[in-house]
């Protein structure tokens, strides 16, 4: 009982300190949308000599903490790269265990005491959901329906997603839409009535603004087919820490990097 009280006290103190730091940081420009590529779970498990799958479980705890910190800092949109279409090529046992974990966690999302209800988060599942197994697909739909009334913040979970698949799907939808409306003036293709906005509105990610920061952990510096269209002006931040070890200080550093670059970006955008 005393241990529980002490834990609650520490958690409360931690939350208070984070809010103090937030009021200092929010003097400067603040990101509205942060995206995470949660890399390094398997390496973490290997380093700690844990069994297969434990890395992803540790990664899930790290994710819950990061969501908590972001929502405390009032970052409205968070996107996570949960499962790429390319990941289906991994060993079947690994894919199956990841899907099982995802089903478990998606179902936990809609529980009353879950983080999404605590912070009023609306959940979207972004990707080619037809590639998922029926149970996962249904659980995702249930979670989206259950949280559709929330409006304080948004969590976008990219599952069975690659950016090229998303763009290709948007192109296909645009072509379908324009099939009958397209002018046949082929001498000057600039006269064609397809623009950036036409494609953008068909993107799965059209429900959120472009990310301000993409954080990829474990030191890898590549996008791995994540938000290619949306990341045209995004700050790309790649700390060396493995995803299960990410903490509040890494988030603060990312935001400070964003603020440091913001002045330069704004000046460049004014020239545009």
């Amino acid at each position: 009982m005393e241990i529980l009280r002490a834990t609650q006290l520490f958690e409360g103190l931690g939350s208070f300190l984070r809010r103090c730091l937030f009021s200092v940081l929010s003097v400067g420009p603040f990101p509205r949308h942060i995206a995470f590529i949660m890399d390094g779970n398997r390496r973490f498990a290997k380093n700690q000599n844990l069994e297969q799958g434990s890395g992803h479980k540790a990664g899930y705890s790290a994710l819950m903490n990061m969501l908590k910190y972001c929502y405390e800092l009032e970052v409205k949109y968070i996107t996570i790269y949960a499962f790429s279409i390319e990941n289906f090529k991994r060993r079947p046992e690994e894919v199956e265990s990841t899907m099982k974990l995802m089903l478990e966690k998606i179902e936990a999302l809609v529980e009353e005491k879950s983080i999404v209800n605590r912070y009023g988060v609306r959940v979207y599942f972004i990707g080619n959901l037809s590639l998922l197994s029926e149970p996962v697909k249904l659980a995702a739909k249930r979670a989206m329906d259950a949280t559709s009334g929330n409006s304080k913040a948004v969590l976008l979970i990219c599952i069975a997603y690659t950016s090229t698949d998303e763009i290709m799907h948007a192109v296909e939808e645009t072509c379908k839409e324009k099939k009958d409306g397209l002018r046949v003036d082929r001498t000057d293709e600039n006269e064609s009535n397809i623009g950036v906005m036409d494609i953008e509105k068909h993107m799965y990610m059209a429900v959120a603004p472009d990310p301000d920061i993409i954080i990829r952990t474990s030191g890898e510096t590549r996008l791995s087919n994540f938000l290619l269209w949306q990341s045209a002006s995004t700050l790309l931040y790649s700390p060396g820490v493995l995803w299960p070890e990410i903490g509040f200080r890494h988030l603060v550093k990312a935001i400070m990097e964003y603020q440091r670059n913001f002045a330069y970006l704004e000046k460049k955008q004014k020239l545009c």
Partner: protein
Amino acid sequence: MAFLSLHLNPSLSSSPLRIRCAPRRSLVIKLPSQVFSSATASGNDVMLNGTPPPPSHYADGNSAVLPPGLLRELMPRHVAIIMDGNRRWARMRGLPVGLGYEAGVRALRRTVELCCKWDVRVLTVFAFSSDNWFRPKVETDFLMGLLERGLRNELQRFVREDVRISLIGDSSKLLKPLQVLLADAMEITKNNSRLHLIIAVNYSGQSDMVQACQKLALKVKDGLIEPEDINEFSVERELETNCTDFPYPDLLIRTSGELRISNFLLWQLAYTELYFADSLWPDFGEDEFLEALCSFQKRQRRYGGRNS
């Protein structure tokens, strides 16, 4: 005026990832770039043991001789570069912006020569973004003039060095003489095969995808394909980078420390290793390029799969 650059192994822990290269063993004495009339005159480099580099440091026919630390089988086939920092370079020296761009052209020349020397097959450079038109007219006119002059001066050399030139971007907004020059350059060099230099002028990654979508929409309109037939390969085929067999860069280098893509190749960068260099583009030379390549060679590329 000479300065020493001793390469150290930086900490991996908490700073934003830049360099993860093993320390280079050589102590390099670097002279100011004006001393080099061409990148092949890098015999000014002196190895730690005091002996000059062997004569085979120069590219010789078809065999690329790589500097120590680089493995041939791990060389990127396609390198893309965002050449950022020319204006900052000029401002830092109290020079007019035009001189910054001219220094940038010299850096590009050095890089093209290094790519030829080290057997990089494709080099794509972001010369002018479609977002840049809103800069002062004096500056955009100067840039277009610089591009024209640069191309005229270098064309014979490209022919001699077996370099192929391609342009990606919307050339219709460029002045007629430049359009004609670019078309001629592409025609004259189209059969060259040592290095494919792709210059992105008035280019944006999103516009590239939009024009690919327009082409596909016209094919749908003409009944050649159904919308359901559209797949990733159909989109890739219509992108402007279809001028090369290797449209996906293995390595993207952006200079001047900015950590973003700025609407350069977007689709094509899906699995590209990104390298953000702190140096400004006019200062980007052989050492900096080597560092980037070294970092690239240390990375594990998984493409969504798993290391064996």
